[in-house]
C-alpha cells in the first residue's frame, strides 16, 4: 500500500511537468502581447517600439524560451508561483481569496449533488423501467443538457423580475457574514449542482442496478431479507464506490471548471481570473492557474482512489 502511494505521488511529477510544458507553449502561441495591450490601452497613447522593448525586458520576455521555462520550473520547485505580469502582484496573492471562493462553490455544489443524486438514483434503480425511473432519468438528463450558465441567467432574471432582488455581487467570506456569503453563493452552487447531481444520479442508478445483479444480493433476496435492509446494508454500500469516483472527478473539474458560471454571477473565482488572464495574455498567471487546477484534479483523483481501496476490501493495490 505505501509503495503504491509513493509511486502514485512520483507519477504526479511527470504529469504536472507535462501540463506545465503544454500550457507554457500554448500561451506563447497566442498571438497577443501583454505589453502592447497594457501600453496602448484605450487612450490611443503614442507608444514607441523602444518603450515596448524596455517593458518586455523588465518582464523577462526577451529571454530565450527554454530559459523562461527553466526559470519558471525552478521557481515552482522553490514554491514560488511567480508574479502576475498584468498586476505586478505575486500570483499567490491573486489566488488567495479566489481559490477560497471557487472551493466553497465547488463544495456546496457537491453537497447539492449528493443530496439529490443518491436518493433519486437509488429510487430509479429500484423501479427500473417504471415511471419513477423515467421521471428521474428525464430530470437528470435535463440536468446534463441544461447549460449551467443559462440556468444562472434565468435565475437572476427571475429574482429581478419577481422579487426585485439581486444576489450580492461582492464576495464576503463565510466567517465574516454567513448570510451575505450564502445569499451570493447558493445560486451558482444550485445551478452547477443540478448538472453535477444529474451525472451522479445516473451513476448511482447504474451502480445500484449493477449491484443488484451480483450473486450475493440475489442470495439475500432469495433468503427473503426485507427490501430496505438489502438496500441499506448491501446494495447502497457497494454501489457507492463508482458514485464516489464520479463525485470526486466532477469536484476536481469544478475547481477550475466554473469558468462560465462565474461570469454569470460575477464570482471573483479562479475561472473568472483565468478568462481575464487569457484575455490579457498574462503568461505567468495563466500558467499558475492551470497548474493549480491540474494539481487539484490529480490530488482529488488520488484521494478518490485511496478511498476506493479503503472502502472496497476486494481491491488491492500493488
Amino acid at each position, binding site marked *: 500500500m505505501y509503495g503504491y502511494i509513493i509511486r502514485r505521488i512520483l*507519477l504526479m511529477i*511527470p*504529469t504536472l511537468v*507535462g*501540463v506545465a510544458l*503544454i*500550457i507554457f507553449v*500554448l*500561451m506563447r*502561441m*497566442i*498571438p*497577443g502581447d501583454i505589453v502592447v495591450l497594457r501600453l496602448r490601452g484605450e487612450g490611443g497613447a503614442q507608444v514607441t517600439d523602444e518603450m515596448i522593448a524596455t517593458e518586455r525586458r523588465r518582464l523577462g520576455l526577451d529571454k530565450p524560451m527554454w530559459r523562461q521555462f527553466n526559470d519558471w520550473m525552478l521557481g515552482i520547485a522553490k514554491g514560488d508561483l511567480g508574479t502576475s505580469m498584468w498586476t505586478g502582484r505575486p500570483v499567490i496573492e491573486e489566488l488567495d481569496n479566489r481559490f477560497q471562493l471557487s472551493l466553497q462553490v465547488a463544495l456546496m455544489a457537491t453537497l447539492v449533488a449528493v443530496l439529490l443524486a443518491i436518493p433519486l438514483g437509488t429510487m430509479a434503480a429500484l423501479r427500473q*423501467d417504471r415511471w419513477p425511473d*423515467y421521471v428521474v*432519468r*428525464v430530470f437528470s*438528463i*435535463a440536468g*446534463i*443538457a*441544461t*447549460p449551467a*450558465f*443559462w440556468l444562472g*441567467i*434565468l435565475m437572476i*432574471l427571475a429574482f*429581478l*423580475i419577481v422579487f426585485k432582488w439581486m444576489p450580492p455581487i461582492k464576495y464576503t467570506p463565510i466567517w465574516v457574514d454567513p448570510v451575505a456569503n450564502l445569499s451570493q453563493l447558493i445560486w451558482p452552487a444550485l445551478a452547477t449542482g443540478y448538472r453535477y447531481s444529474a451525472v451522479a444520479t*445516473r*451513476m448511482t442508478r*447504474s*451502480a445500484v*442496478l*449493477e449491484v443488484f445483479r451480483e450473486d450475493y444480493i440475489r442470495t439475500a433476496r432469495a433468503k427473503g431479507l426485507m427490501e430496505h435492509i438489502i438496500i441499506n446494508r448491501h446494495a447502497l454500500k457497494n454501489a457507492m464506490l*463508482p458514485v464516489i*469516483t*464520479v463525485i470526486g472527478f466532477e469536484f476536481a*473539474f469544478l*475547481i*477550475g*471548471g466554473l*469558468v*462560465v458560471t462565474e*461570469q454569470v454571477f460575477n464570482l471573483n473565482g479562479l475561472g473568472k481570473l*483565468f*478568462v481575464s488572464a*487569457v484575455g490579457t495574455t498574462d503568461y505567468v498567471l*495563466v500558467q499558475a492557474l*492551470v497548474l493549480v*487546477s*491540474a494539481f487539484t*484534479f*490529480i490530488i482529488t483523483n488520488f484521494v478518490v482512489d485511496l478511498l476506493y481501496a479503503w472502502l472496497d476490501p476486494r481491491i488491492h493495490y500493488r
Partner: protein
Amino acid sequence: MSDIAADREQGRTWVAGASAASVRFFHTKPLGAAGLVLVLVYIFVAVLAPAIAPYDPIDIRYDAMLVAPSWHNWMGTDSFGRDVFSRIIYGSRTAMLVGFTASFIGATLGLLIGVWSAYAGGRTDMLVQRVLDVFMSFPLIVLALAIVSVFGTGVGNVILAITIPMIPRCARVVRSSALALREVPYIDAARALGFTHSRIILRHMLPNVVAPYLILLTAFMGQAILLEASLSFLGLGVQEPTAAWGLMLQGGAEQYAESAPWLPIFPGIAITGSVFAFNLFGDSLRDVLDPKLRT
C-alpha cells in the same frame, strides 16, 4: 475487467443484427427511442434549414428591431431585426456541424489511440498513458479556451478546440476495453499467422471496442454542443453574423433581458433540447450495449 466473452458477444450482435437490435431498442427503451426521434428531428431541421426558415437568418431589418413574438416572427426578432426563429433553425446547422464533427473526430482519434496503445503495450502504452494523463488534467473548458485563443475564433477552430480535449477521454475508455482483448487467444493466433499489426488492430480489435466507442460518441455530441455554447457565451466561439445558439444567448441574455425576454429563452431551449435528445438516446444505447460501462 468485464467478461471477455460477453464483450465479443455484444460486438457480434451489434455488427450482425443491427436492425433486430433497433426494433428491440424501440420496444424496451421508449425514452431512448424518443431521444432518437428528437435527434432525427434536429438533423432534419439542420439539413432542410433553408426550406424551413421563414427568413434569411442574417438579413438585418432596422424597421423590425426587438419585435415581440407574433404571427410574422414566431420567436420575435433580435436587436438587428433578424428573425429569431430562422436563426434558431440555422443555428441547428452550426450546432450539428460542431457536434458531429467534433465528437466524431474526437472519439475516432481517441479510439485509434486507445486501441493502438493497448495493442502495443509495454513502454508505448505507458508513455501514451502519461500523455493522456496530462491532457486529462486540464479542465475541458480551460483547454478549449486556450486553443481558441491560439488559433482564433471561427467554426473550424471551435471544432478543433472542442475535439482535442475529447480525444484522451475516449482513448482512456477504449484502451481499458481493448486491454482485455489483447491477450485473447484469437488475437494471439492472428499474430502467429503473421498478420500485420494494422490488420489485427483493424479487423480484430476494433470491432470489439465498438460499443464503448458508440456510447462515447453520443455522449460527446451533447458535450460538444454545450461546449460550443459556452465558448460562444464567452465571446470566443462562432462569430456574428453566423447563426449559433450560444452566440444568440450571449447577446440576448446580456442586454435585452427585460424588454425582450424571448432572446435568452428560445436559444437556451434549443440548446437544452438538442443535448437532451442526444443524451436520452445515448443513455439507452448504453443500457443496451454495455450496462457496465461507466462513462
